[in-house]
């Protein structure tokens, strides 16, 4: 039976590869390997995996940091379904998959990607409704559990715009149910942050509060307006074993752009409303001008 191997990086999207029985696979940092793992604890040619007599077998190729299966150091080992392979300090999930299952995974991934693209069906005149719908899509298409859009020029000025599956009431940085560490990094780096199994994540695990929250995967994407960060999109999952893959990042990026456009439209609308109220309240306005103003809007 073929297999799927999911390389779970702690601070970048997980990478999925499919293994077919008729091929042998070299695992390592070298570009010559069939499965390239970019991690300092992985040797250039670290291990090999091959299917012998319908059984998947993993061999360590005298690597510097060793190979483990379900936590036990090995030189050679057969691979059972749902085995955790550690290549150096990089954990990989090994799962047997039938050809039909692989086809279903690929079909479903194609559907998820196409459903994340902007379409007429998503657009309504109500911008807030659009925003809600886009955030719900983001959570559901990436399989996370909850999320929110938070606006503010700095981390300290952050306020809740909308949340889904997450309490947004009385939002305060010190009692936020999600990861402030990830949001903080998002502001400082200005780029998407992805973290998984964050008890091992170098930057986030130092925060005891995060470990207690048991978040297993999270993503945080900056929202920009005229080159400045005006907020973040945050989503996470407490579901054990949840990983965010490269495809998830593609979906996150696609929907984030839609959310960014909606947020920009909301800000523009608020500016227009502010100008309108200033115009209406202006004492220098005469009746004729006001009618003209109404006509224009």
């Amino acid at each position, binding site marked *: 039976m073929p297999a799927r191997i999911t390389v779970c990086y702690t601070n970048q999207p997980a990478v999925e590869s499919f293994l077919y029985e008729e091929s042998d696979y070299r695992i390592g940092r070298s570009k010559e390997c069939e499965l390239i793992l970019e991690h300092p604890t992985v040797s250039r040619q670290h291990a090999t995996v091959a299917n012998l007599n319908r059984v998947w077998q993993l061999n360590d190729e005298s690597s510097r940091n060793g190979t483990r299966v379900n936590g036990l150091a090995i030189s050679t080992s057969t691979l059972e379904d749902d085995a955790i392979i550690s290549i150096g300090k990089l954990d990989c999930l090994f799962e047997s998959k*039938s050809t*039909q*299952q692989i*086809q*279903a*995974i*690929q*079909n*479903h*991934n*194609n*559907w*998820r990607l196409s*459903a994340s693209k902007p379409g007429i069906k998503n657009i*309504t005149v*109500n911008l807030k*409704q659009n925003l*809600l*719908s886009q955030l*719900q899509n983001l*959570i*559901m298409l990436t*399989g996370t*559990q*909850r999320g929110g859009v938070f606006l503010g020029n700095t981390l300290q000025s952050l306020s809740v715009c909308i949340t*889904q*599956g997450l309490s947004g009431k009385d939002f305060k940085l010190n009692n936020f149910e999600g990861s402030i560490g990830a949001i903080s990094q998002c502001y400082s780096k200005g780029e998407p942050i992805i973290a998984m199994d964050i008890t091992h994540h170098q930057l986030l695990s130092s925060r005891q509060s995060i470990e207690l929250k048991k978040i297993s995967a999270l993503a945080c994407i900056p929202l920009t307006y005229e080159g400045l960060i005006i907020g973040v999109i945050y989503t996470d999952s*407490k579901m054990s074993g949840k990983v965010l893959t490269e495809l998830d990042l593609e979906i996150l990026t696609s929907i984030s752009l839609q959310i960014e456009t909606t947020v920009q439209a909301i800000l523009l609308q608020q500016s227009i409303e502010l100008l309108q109220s200033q115009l209406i309240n202006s004492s220098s306005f005469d009746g004729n001008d006001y009618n003209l103003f109404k006509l224009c809007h």
Partner: protein
Amino acid sequence: MLVGRFEIVSAQGRGQYGCVYKALDTQLQTYIAIKVLNSALHNSEQAISSFKNELLLVRQLSHPNIIRVHEYYFDRQLHFITMDWIEGLTLEDKIAEKKLTSQEIIDIVKQLFAGLACADEVGIVHKDLKPDNILIDTESKVYIADFGLAALKNNDNSQSIIGTPYYAAPEYLLQGKVNKSTDLYSLGVIIYQLCCHSMPLRVIVLN
């Protein structure tokens, strides 16, 4: 094939929120239940949105006596949710059989309380608890289904939904008030029905 993944196996029944199908998840090679929402329910974008919000909360519920909701999808003009597949009967069917012993009733009620207590801890109210959406598997494990679906009633087409008011608390039925005792009232009616094989109130007049 829905969303490139789910293959419908058979239709299971029609409820007030939509049709339920048994389907094969070709990705995981397991059976799941698919509930396709009534088209009358998804005319209002706002109702769908509040339903999705509720569903995201329900999806975080993890309890052995609550049916796990997996995902919400929109594909081929169908709004549907995927859930755990339970092989068994509804409590409605069990009541109709009139074979439940006192001990079995106690076991059922204990499990229902456990499920409701878990939902209460995170502030989720079912709002439509009744024997028809309680399932009992072949090992007598009890599962509460349809958490979150009541959010769909909050739209302009609510008059077209045919539901039974027998299990709804009077303040919820008449004024739409929801509180911690909303589901307990429904459970009280269910316990009465389990023990007495009849409803506590025979006539309800609604405007």
